[in-house]
């Protein structure tokens, strides 16, 4: 029983940052932006989140800084890809590399450490106990006692889904992706919609980053996003941006991640940590085969 509860909680923890970033990616996907910069935005968020929490001894400030840091990254993307009309792919690659370099540099300059920085001064984001529910056996151990960000993620999934499919913004957002001239000639600037989608993506990636450095663990280490942004990109592409689909894919990934940890008992960790990435590759492969079949019909 404990193993299963552990696996499920592991799944939720691993899925959270991926899901958040992928929801951001979903918004830019619908806006027709080839946005691969979630990795960089998330890493920026993780660093600034740690910084905010450390200096102000406050986790809300940590979250705020994480969001601002990721938005900063998004603004750089906007400057190059939207304002200066540079290639989105190149901009994304550049931003991801810049993010690794900049956070590593700042870490070493500000804290004079290499690799990772942790300190009791960094206040983690709290776990939330839900009264009544927490006392229910098994269910209570899963539904209650999760990190605040986990609950926010659940909320974000619903909000993004609502935003994309039910609101005026959503109608315009998808229109920007389907046919931008049509949106422009309807009197709505497609570029403005694209900018907003990127800023919202920044907010979500910032939350994801804060979970990495203030939730999952309470420290910042160089390159700690560790490919999660790329996996979130795979999730977005796999389900063509659909938020519910993204949530399922993220949970699946989280599950394989947890499984990997579990398998460490019998296999070397170098192999077990490959599991989620292999799962992603398999999913992408299955998807592309299915797509090909559909096209030949």
């Amino acid at each position, binding site marked *: 029983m404990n193993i299963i509860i552990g696996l499920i909680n592991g799944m939720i923890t691993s899925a959270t940052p991926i899901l958040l970033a992928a929801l951001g990616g979903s918004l830019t996907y619908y806006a027709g932006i080839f946005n691969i910069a979630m990795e960089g935005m998330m890493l920026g968020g993780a660093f600034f989140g740690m910084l905010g929490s450390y200096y102000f001894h406050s986790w809300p400030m940590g979250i705020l800084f994480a969001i601002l840091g990721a938005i900063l990254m998004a603004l750089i993307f906007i400057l190059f890809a939207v304002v200066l009309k540079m290639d989105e792919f190149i901009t994304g690659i550049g931003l991801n590399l810049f993010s690794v370099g900049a956070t590593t540099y700042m870490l070493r300059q500000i804290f004079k450490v290499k690799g990772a920085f942790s300190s009791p001064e960094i206040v983690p984001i709290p776990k939330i106990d839900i009264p009544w529910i927490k006392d229910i056996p098994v269910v209570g151990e899963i539904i209650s006692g999760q990190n605040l960000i986990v609950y926010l993620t659940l909320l974000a999934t619903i909000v993004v889904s609502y935003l994309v499919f039910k609101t005026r913004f959503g109608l315009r957002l998808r229109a920007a992706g*389907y*046919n931008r001239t049509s*949106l422009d000639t309807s009197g709505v600037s497609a570029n403005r919609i694209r900018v907003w989608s990127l800023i919202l993506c920044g907010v979500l990636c910032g939350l994801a980053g804060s979970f990495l450095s203030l939730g999952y663990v309470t420290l910042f280490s160089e390159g700690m996003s560790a490919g999660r942004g790329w996996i979130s990109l795979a999730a977005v592409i796999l389900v063509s941006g659909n938020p519910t689909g993204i949530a399922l894919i993220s949970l699946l990934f989280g599950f394989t991640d947890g499984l990997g940890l579990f398998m460490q008992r019998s296999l070397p960790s170098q192999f077990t940590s490959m599991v989620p990435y292999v799962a992603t590759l398999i999913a992408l492969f299955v998807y592309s085969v299915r797509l090909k079949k559909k096209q030949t019909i």
Partner: protein
Amino acid sequence: MADIIEMDRIVKIFPPSLVALDAVSVKFAKGEIHAIVGENGAGKSTLMKILYGMQPADSGEMVYNGKKVKFSDPGEAILAGIGMVHQEIMLIPQYTVWENVVLGYEPVKFGGRLDVKKARELVKQKIDEFGFNLNADAKVEDISVAARQKVEILKLLFRNVSVLIMDEPTSVLTPQEIPQLFGELKRLRDNGHTILFISHHLEEVLELSDRITVLRKGKKVGTIKTAEATKAGLAQMMVGREVIFDSIRKNQTAGAVLFQTTALNYTDPDKRPRLIDVNIQVRAGEIVGVAGVEGNGQLELVNLIMGLIEPTSGSIKAVGEDITRKPILEKRKRVAFVPQDRANMGASISANIAENVIMTHHRLDQRFTRWAGRILDFKQAASFTDEVRRKFDIQMSSGEAVFKSLSGGNQQKVILGRELLLEAPFILLDQPTRGLDVGSIEYVHQRIIDMRAQKRGILMISADLEELFRLTDRIVVMHKGRVVADLVTEKTNVTEVGYLMLEGAAYEA
């Protein structure tokens, strides 16, 4: 009448050196229908795009409602009350009709939530008000080109603009739908709207407009009152020479059967029969026209011939060979094809002109490739492009230019040139002159007649009865998926064909 818009010495140059508008000055009066006519490439669309804020002018001024204005994007123009229906349809295919209509003007409830119920109701109301035959819930990708155009017009009416710019709105409507549109436009004018109407069809312009401005090669030729204009006079102003409108066909006996469909049936995926026992024959040296209201099976017929869909039963024969399920290259050896959808089927619009010109030729004709078909010979492509340009009188900067930079008429000429220069004995033409100006139509018609003289067999689908009567030897009429009549052109008349198109039954005089 007071002028609502004054455009003063507008200049537009497309780099490097194409002068699209050369100091054009024109005034539009409030509450008039003002037609703008001119050949393809004359600069009509460009002039209107400048007014609408889609393109900046290089110099010149605009006065609107007595104030100097300059719209930097269409949004500003719409807010000011100027709306435009474009020549190229600009809708979102994945959206429904009502979503397209309300986009940018959406009714919302609390929290930015789309008020779906209200939006659909408003759109349905507009549809009823203007008597458009549209389903507000249909997806735009599933409806015909004509219906899409109606959605565009509806979208504008929904925005309550006071100046309507229409870039060839009738080019995609069927003959039956045009009077209805004209009625609406006239009613709008009588309500005080100003309508700027671009068209190639001189009859339409003469029937609808109050005044006419003629452009030729980027220059204004003049503005005249419609009451004082004649078709021949206008044509001469547009083209700069006299244009002949009469039939140009010489008598000639048709040869062997080149093309034949036998008991062709097609039922669509929703189990609706679209084509029922269609038998059509085309002989060498013969032009057969297909008349019919749009949506009566013409599209399916074309798609079946080209292999885009498979028949439920029946066969298609071309040049003595059953091509019903032959691969496309085999079909293309026998069938030249000019589709009605230039941008999606006729060409790759982001490829350059030369690449578009040699498409298919590069597979069928050895001279365009080397190394057993692996390498394209661009020198040959360039000289062939030049040949097509000369033979079909195409206005273009160079073969390297991207296809979509051509005006609509020139795009059509490129496609026609490519197809008619194929050696294929049978030619399938789907609305070959839709959207072309009188000069170009005359030209294209002449080329089609040439093909007939060369003993090729031609099947031509057209919504323009005048065109069918001018060119064809026989006319088959389609109604609800059936061929309801197969008539010798000389022994029938427009009334009879029109009646068959609408009623499907034999006409009793």
